[in-house]
């Protein structure tokens, strides 16, 4: 089913409406990109230039010291590795757990699954501010405070709650004929899951994986509270170092923002085809 191509939906040639749509897209793209361009512009200004000309002026030259200073000041390489490690682990673990949960709820159709789903959804809508203190005491009790693994566990659970909710509804529409055919061929439950369900829903799983990765990457509050040592910190927490009590360093903050957003953009570009394919499959369903 993943081979149902997007070509079927390509609009026909001609028509003046197309140019209007194109123009609208261009305007929309400009509006979306403008803030990024301003940040990028400020990232390559010297602090003095920023103070003289203000934030909206075009940079007079390319000044990369802000980027370099920030990199060295917070050991950005280490932070990048921490973020990659946390987000990567969470994405994979959460997808695996979501699949297992959703298999039971969506295909296994256990009793009371509706209530289980409602519970998961509620867990997902709880604000993180409310979770921070209980989680802090749990982490302290288990000796996991100030470790990366505590953040991985927390986010695996948080993301799994959403993943289970989404995947369960997707899998409950899974074609029964395929499952029955597999059973007749002598596959047990385990084999049905790994040989049939997972391969067929791979596009959806890939999308989930990408989303979990990016969501976890951008998380701020829980890493801020749990990752006390600078050695354990993630990129988003490291960006907070520049926010002083009364002063902000606008150029270096912009530089750090550029460094902070680059990995997610790179990640998105690499997995962009996966994303579009997954979304398309979902749409046809």
């Amino acid at each position: 089913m993943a081979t149902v191509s997007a070509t079927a939906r390509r609009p026909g040639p001609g028509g003046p409406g197309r140019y209007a749509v194109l123009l609208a897209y261009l305007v929309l793209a400009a509006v979306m990109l403008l803030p990024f361009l301003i940040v990028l512009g400020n990232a390559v200004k010297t602090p003095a230039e920023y103070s003289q000309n203000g934030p909206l002026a075009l940079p007079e030259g390319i000044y990369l010291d802000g980027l370099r200073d920030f990199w060295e000041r917070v050991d950005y390489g280490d932070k990048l590795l921490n973020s990659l490690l946390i987000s990567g682990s969470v994405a994979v673990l959460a997808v695996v757990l979501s699949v297992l949960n959703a298999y039971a709820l969506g295909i296994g159709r256990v009793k009371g699954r509706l209530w289980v789903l409602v519970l998961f959804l509620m867990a997902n809508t709880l604000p993180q501010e409310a979770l921070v203190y209980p989680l802090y005491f749990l982490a302290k009790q288990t000796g996991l405070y100030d470790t990366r693994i505590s953040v991985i566990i927390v986010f695996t659970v948080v993301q799994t709650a959403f993943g289970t909710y989404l995947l369960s509804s997707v899998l409950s529409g899974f074609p029964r004929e395929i499952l029955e055919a597999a059973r007749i061929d002598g596959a047990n439950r385990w084999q049905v899951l790994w040989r049939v369900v997972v391969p067929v829903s791979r596009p959806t799983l890939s999308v989930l994986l990408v989303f979990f990765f990016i969501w976890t990457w951008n998380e701020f509050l829980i890493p801020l509270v749990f990752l006390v040592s600078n050695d354990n910190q993630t990129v988003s927490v490291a960006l907070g170092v520049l926010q002083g009590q009364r002063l902000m360093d606008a150029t270096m903050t912009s530089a750090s923002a550029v460094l902070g957003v680059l990995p997610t953009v790179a990640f998105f570009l690499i997995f962009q085809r996966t994303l579009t394919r997954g979304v398309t499959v979902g749409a046809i369903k």
Partner: protein
Amino acid sequence: MVKVRKAAAVLAALATAATALAGCGGDSDSGGSGGKELRLWHYEGPDSAMGVAWNQAIKEFEATHPGVKVKFEEKGFEQIQKTAPMILNSKDAPDLMEYNKGNATAGLLSRQRLLTDLTPEVTKRGWDKLVPAGVQVTAKYDGKGVMGGDKWFGVPNYAEYVQVYYNKDLFDKHGVKVPTTFAELTAAMDQFVAKGVTPLTNAGAEYMAHQFVYQLALTRADRAWVDAYERYTGKVNFKDAAWTYGATTFADWVKKGYVAKNSVGAKAEDAGVGFISGKFPMMFSGSWWFGRVAAEAKFEWDTFVWPEAKMTLGSGGNLWVVPQGSKNKELAYDFIDITMKKGIQNALGNAGGIPVAADTAAITNPKAKKLIDNFNTLAASDGLAYYPDWPVPGFYDTWVSEVQKLMNGSASPDQVLGNIQKAYDSGLPK
């Protein structure tokens, strides 16, 4: 399909490697180091006066304590602000850290018994003799965590106050005399307005706007008034002569154009950049801008204390605090001692900060010397009036939004002061 599978496989491999690594990360090096390591946290940028001076202090500490390493971690202000109670209540507390002074911060932690009482060390090492009395107030707390108490829970290394920065070139260009009295100040602002120049830069969305109101009120107030407001030593009436004068005068200044009406949504950063880029002749703000103005302003500038003010906004700076869970308290005291010595204090002053115990003769930069001299005069005459947002939790936001209404003219000074009274009364400690 193949591509996807490959990518997924790469990710999976990466993640398993990652989890393996994370397992190792479990036991971070937080264990006791037997007095061989001082874990130090602060949140001053490396180029700021404090950053420069304290870096020098780290080197000096390591030189005088062979075999001991300083493990310094630079933190964000927000991280410390949000998480200090949690960190200090765990075994991962640092040995020594910088912390925000005030009832809601250091005071609260002292009440929760998370900070070490430094009183014996302070008297033993003579720090109480170095720090001027007005600056000591924010370092000492009572049993309820209210500042001005009897026990030292922190040691201030620097101080800060608010003053007027002015652009000499703009004063010369428009033929305006630099004011020395309050009447001259308003006359000078009238002249600027007549020339189409807004005399004062301002930020309505942050601290700058309500600091004008407080400063104006202070010109009609005395020490007992400040203590009642900041330290709950008496009843506070926002409808009294001083507050009413402050609020009505500031509203009047907005009407007269001394302060731009459109600055109501501006941030302090915008206001500062406005001054540094030479658009405004004056900025009334804190000594925390000093280093930046010195580094970036391309015009002749200088500073003066608010004309005829006996009291102005200011206080001791942030504190060195020793967490109750510190594993190397002796080393922490030694480090504080080094930062209080003349060498580091002079370095702090020369870098544009206000040291609490410097030798002013050793300050070479004339502007920095003036900054410090003015502060010392204020401190000696008991002229530090703290900040208007200190007394009750959440007061900063109240001040910002009420003064914005004042600037917009959507509420009268009387209504604004009434609202502030309500927030003050309901926030008072029981």
